[in-house]
């Protein structure tokens, strides 16, 4: 064996992403993440990949506090600016395509070619949503005809802090497909990464941290979904929750908890085969976490000569 072969490679410590920082779990706990059963690779199937942090309810609380702080700045930024920031995220993703290809291959047990296709689709999906930031108001908003001397305008506004239970099966493309629409419209997100496949999500945080997304706009927690999600669903300061990655039983429990402060809830797909993340997503997820603000404004055309109507 040559001298070069004897080198020990440096292992990566995966960490949470909260408020633009990379903390360990407050609890100090980690859990083992292994490759998918069908994954290839030198050491074979089910091999150890990394220890991921196992977030506690206090990590969830901290993440919500960080997200709440970020809402004003992010939702107040111009839609154009948010779009530019999201394009930048796609650029950073593109630059680390090889890394994500390897991570997705391990996580989902795909061949290199299929994994690369997933990563490419995730990057394209991100670009697609980036383009929507300054167009969603034209689709979801309206100038309403009313019987009176008023301009009546409906404009979509972000819901606020959105908890996202990321899809369990699709570690990157599925994650991007649920996360990008939430933040494109100006919400702040607290993401619970796929329980068995959290590594692509934790790596995505590194891209977000280096691409002008303000700290706290996206927060990524890894760990037991059934432990973290109920805290988020019951949290009074979370405005909406996306249950995509919760199984039927957990989703029901979370929806009950979310009802107490009238959270907006996006139910998981009823399709037993799960969602096809490669399909055209449509605007459903973009408009799921928007509130409509309607403004009545006098036209000013009511004068001594009578109404212009």
């Amino acid at each position: 064996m040559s001298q070069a072969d004897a080198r020990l490679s440096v292992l990566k410590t995966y960490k949470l992403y909260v408020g633009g920082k990379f903390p360990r779990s407050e609890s100090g706990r980690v859990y083992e993440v292994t490759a998918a059963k069908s994954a290839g690779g030198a050491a074979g199937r089910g091999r150890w990949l990394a220890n991921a942090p196992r977030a506690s309810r206090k990590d969830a609380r901290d993440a919500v506090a960080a997200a709440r702080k970020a809402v004003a700045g992010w939702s107040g930024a111009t839609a154009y600016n948010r779009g530019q920031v999201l394009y930048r995220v796609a650029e950073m993703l593109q630059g680390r395509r090889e890394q994500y290809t390897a991570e997705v291959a391990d996580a989902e047990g795909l061949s290199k070619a299929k994994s690369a296709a997933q990563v490419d689709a995730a990057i394209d999906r991100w670009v697609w949503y980036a383009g929507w930031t300054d167009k969603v108001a034209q689709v979801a908003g309206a100038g309403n005809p009313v019987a009176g001397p008023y301009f009546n305008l409906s404009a979509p506004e972000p819901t606020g802090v959105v908890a996202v239970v990321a899809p369990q099966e699709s570690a990157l493309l599925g994650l991007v497909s649920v996360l990008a629409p939430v933040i494109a419209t100006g919400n702040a997100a607290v993401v619970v990464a796929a329980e068995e496949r959290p590594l692509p999500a934790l790596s995505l945080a590194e891209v977000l941290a280096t691409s002008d997304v303000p700290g706290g706009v996206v927060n990524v927690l890894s760990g037991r979904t059934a432990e973290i999600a109920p805290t988020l669903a019951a949290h009074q300061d979370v405005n909406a929750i996306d249950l995509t990655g919760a199984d039927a039983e957990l989703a029901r429990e979370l929806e009950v908890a979310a009802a107490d402060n009238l959270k907006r809830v996006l139910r998981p797909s009823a399709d037993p085969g799960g969602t096809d993340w490669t399909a055209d997503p449509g605007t459903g997820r973009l408009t799921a976490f928007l509130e409509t603000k309607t403004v009545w404004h006098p036209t000013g055309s009511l004068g001594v000569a009578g109404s212009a109507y």
Partner: protein
Amino acid sequence: MPRIPTAAAGPPASLADVTASDGALRRFLHGLPGVDPVGLEARAAALGTRSIKTTAKAYALDLAVSMIDLTTLEGADTPGKVRSLCAKARTPDPTDRTTPQVAAVCVYPDLAATAAGALAGSGVQVASVATAFPSGRAALEVKLADTRAALAAGADEIDMVIDRGAFLAGRYLEVYEQIRAVREAAGTARLKVIFETGELSTYDNIRRASWLGMLAGADFIKTSTGKVGVNATPANTLVLLEAVRDYRAATGVQVGVKPAGGIRTAKDAVKFLVLVNETAGDDWLDNRWFRFGASSLLNDLLMQRQKLRTGRYSGPDYVTVD
């Protein structure tokens, strides 16, 4: 009104001679044991690691709420803002009537009358800053007039600032005489003496100021105005707590402590209560002897109370933001 044996009478007989002259006072204050800053900060930090949970936490949160001097000291204060603060002081959490009232509302003298009107009959005290707060840089006559105006407006408690310039220049007797004069002007009102610890530069100075204030008749010694970079910290509050403990041991007179400024979370407040219990003792765990000068702290305490009651994390939508 019967007076507790502090204050107006001046220093107790055992310490009467230390204020006889500038030289005697300096010898006494510089003769106090020096503070070991490393040990002090380590002690304060160690006491901050105590884990206070469940029923003890519920008790601590309620106690902390009852110890708050709900404060607004801004140039932009209006009568409307003071009235809304007073409403909050009377009923901190309208969704839970078991929440205790705060101890006092702390305002500028010109708004003391507004506060007194809004708090009439509630049991919540009106505290007013005085003596050219926050700098304390005015002639003694002006400071006394400021104090009398606050009392005339209905203040129950006076928060005065010491002249840090005189203190740092070593003119201890001058500072002492000023506090004495305000003490006399304040009459039966409780007098809190603010040292502005962030400007005193050493822990030794904070200890000297504490003794100076107590000798001159303070009912409370208070860390800060909240207007400088460094306000109440666990370490400087620990110095004050040691001083009141030692003063009672030496003279039998109990003096209160009020950390002010920079205490924003329930967790911080509980740490201070641990400091009080472990340093001065549980005689001080009462809003007659310990106060928090704070504004945003109350909201965090209320959110923590809601969390304990319901098991779900609360948010700023569920408390009044002032």
